């Protein structure tokens, strides 16, 4: 990939920030969907039960920890991949 000059880097940084915001929004709605799917199955009431509330809390925290770990491994694997591609 061609290197970006300073001006291009600045412009690209703006693009990156916009994407980060969009990505965060997607993360949020994805997580809501996931925890609803996995935790909320009792419709005898319109209010979340305490069991469901606890489940949602655990679901959210677990997902974020999961995402963090996957992110770390991803960086490592990506670095390895770059090394291997250069050897080819």
């Amino acid at each position, binding site marked *: 990939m061609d290197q970006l000059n300073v001006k*291009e880097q600045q412009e690209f940084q703006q*693009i990156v920030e916009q*994407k980060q915001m969009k990505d965060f929004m997607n993360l949020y709605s994805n997580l809501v969907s996931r925890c609803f799917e996995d935790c909320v199955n009792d419709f005898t009431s319109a209010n979340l039960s305490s069991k469901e509330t606890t489940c949602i809390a*655990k679901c959210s925290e*677990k997902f974020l920890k999961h995402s963090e770990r*996957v992110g770390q491994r*991803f960086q490592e*694997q990506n670095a*390895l*991949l770059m090394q291997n591609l250069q050897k080819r």
Partner: protein
Amino acid sequence: MFGLGGSTPQVSSQQKLQAAEAELDMVTGMFNQLVNQCHKKCINASYYESDITKQEALCLDRCVAKYFETNVQVGDNMQKLGQSGALMGRQ
């Protein structure tokens, strides 16, 4: 003579940014898929606790490694198939 023919084509700023953006999208897309798939394959959806268990952690590490290896293999396979003409009509 000088500057006539043979030189590499000038890549515009616009094109460079688009290429960089495409690469970023690809990596982000891959990461998001990886997160979702490894969650499905490794994380217990009963959520007994909010921490990742040792077993789940090990599964995740292996899941990511295998995903990358799969990525490389599919790339190689597609290259071979492209050469043999199996991808004709798709290119």
